């Protein structure tokens, strides 16, 4: 049984079927890919899993519990976090404060504790700051510690967004086009980073990406969407040679190697 199971997932906007009857499972500890041409409904699937959109029909089961139509923060606290296609950092905060904010779940003190500086506040606050520092170290962000997020180089912004998601200690990490706008060198680094994240943070990764070198390089299982429907699913080798996938990307009549 997978850590995430999506069954007959459907989302319509008025008459438009953005995602129609999609089912797939993500194996615990795996790195899986979600690909498809533009407008295939990949990001919509992410938005449904993370509770940003309400599900029209079908169900999403995470860790044995149904999560569809729960509030986004509840789903996040159950262990699913994500990054966004168009980066959404806390723009005017420093790198450190971006991560520190996301560490909020590592402390339990209440508002009264904070306002009156009561029991445990200092110790818990110190622990959060240590966690944030440690995470920055692991993600190679220490030299940007006090830089404002929106002034960072693009690749670093992407890395910071992943770091912020990891601060919540997710069991499942959803990455929405993490390599967009990166050069081949940065993409290579990103690939090894994603693999390292799986090992060090002990989490499952589901990634949307258009860069086939990344998808084929790190994913064990690939789900292909087209026009909101699931086209096929399989290992990189199977996907690369599947005529339906090639047709979806390149159009009818295209031949492999042509």
């Amino acid at each position, binding site marked *: 049984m997978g850590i995430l199971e999506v069954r007959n997932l459907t989302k319509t906007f008025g008459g438009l079927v953005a995602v129609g009857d999609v089912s797939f499972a993500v194996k615990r500890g795996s790195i899986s890919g979600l690909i498809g041409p533009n407008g295939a409904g990949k990001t919509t699937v992410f938005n449904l899993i*993370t*509770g*940003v959109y309400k599900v029209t029909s079908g169900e999403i089961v995470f860790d044995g519990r149904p999560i569809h139509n729960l*509030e*986004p*923060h509840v789903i*996040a*606290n159950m262990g699913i*976090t*994500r990054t*966004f296609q168009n980066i*959404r*950092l*806390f*723009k*005017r*905060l*420093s790198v*450190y*404060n971006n991560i*520190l*904010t*996301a*560490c*909020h*779940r590592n*402390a339990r*003190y209440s*508002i009264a504790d*904070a*306002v*009156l*500086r009561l029991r445990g*506040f200092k110790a818990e*606050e110190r622990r*959060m700051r240590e966690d944030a520092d440690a995470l920055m170290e692991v993600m190679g962000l220490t030299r940007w510690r*006090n*830089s*404002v*997020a*929106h*002034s960072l180089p693009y690749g670093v912004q992407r890395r910071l967004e992943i770091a*912020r*998601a990891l*601060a*919540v200690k997710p069991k499942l990490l959803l990455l929405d086009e993490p390599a967009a706008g990166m050069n081949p060198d940065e993409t290579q680094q990103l690939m090894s980073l994603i693999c390292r994240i799986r090992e060090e943070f002990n989490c499952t990764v589901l990634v949307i990406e258009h860069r086939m070198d990344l998808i084929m390089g790190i994913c064990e299982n690939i789900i292909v969407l087209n026009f909101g429907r699931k086209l096929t699913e399989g290992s990189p080798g199977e996907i690369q040679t599947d005529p339906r996938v090639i047709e979806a990307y390149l159009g009818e009549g295209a031949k492999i190697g042509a």
Partner: protein
Amino acid sequence: MDWFYIKGILILSGINLMAVLGLSLLTGFTGLFSFGHAGFMAIGAYTAAYLGVKMGLPLTVALLAGGFSAGLVSLFIGKLTLKLKGDYFCIATLGFGEAIRLILDNVQTFGGARGWPGIPIRVDLWNVALVNVVGIALLVNLVNSRHGRNMIAVREEELAAKTIGIDTFRYKMISLFISAVYAGVAGGLVGYYTGFLQPKMFSLNKSTELTIIVIFGGIGSISGSVLGALLLTALPEILRAFALWRLVVYGAAVIFIMISRPEGLMGGKEITWKGIASLLQRGLRLHPAAKSQAGAGAQASVGDRGGDRDGNGSASGSGSGDRAAQSIKPSF
């Protein structure tokens, strides 16, 4: 200028400051604009006055009860409107503020539009100052905690805040509640300072004035709100020499400052002991000789600290340093 006059201005500044502190949390740190805080002040004012005059409760209890009742009403308003997206909350608060004023105008229990005279004067400079010191201390502690950071996250990027597990609706409610309590306490102070309450005192003008002060002082800066409240409450008095043109000059002054410093007086930074110390140190170290180097040094350090909001950030940068830091920042 005699002391009585100056003291009066200081007390009014202090009362405004209390309301502004609350609004600063809501607008400056949580990113929600309200044009109805005068309504919360009115609720606090009338509740506190009623409890003091009719039931004989001591000032502290009356003020707290006034603040708390404003807070309760805010929860009701928030529950109805904070789930709405965009500017609806702002419009709803505007309607709420005016509704409270009109109700008080027409309900005769508290004197209606004629007002409510004869409230004992119990507020003096020392207790206004005390209330403000406590108010600032509590707010600083709140902002520099995980709860305060969660509110800032809501302001910066609500969707991202949700995906890292922040219950944004809850934090908006908390922020609104606390800000309404502050406004309610400020309202209570008004009644016990002037000895007279009238619904007209809590019109849309008052709400707008509070919002202007928060923006003027700088979004997301408590020290900015303090400076803003002191300056902008005193400004119309300083401008009395202009007689009829007073408020025109006031408006022009506010516009001028907002154009020259669009990020507000403090621009999201705080005045801290550390900042003051380093400023003094720098001032002592570089006497006349190395002024030009000083400028360069200041610029670099301000640039480094740009977005540090965890309380260690300082406001020590000189104006020119700030400007330089801004111009270096690439825009995305």
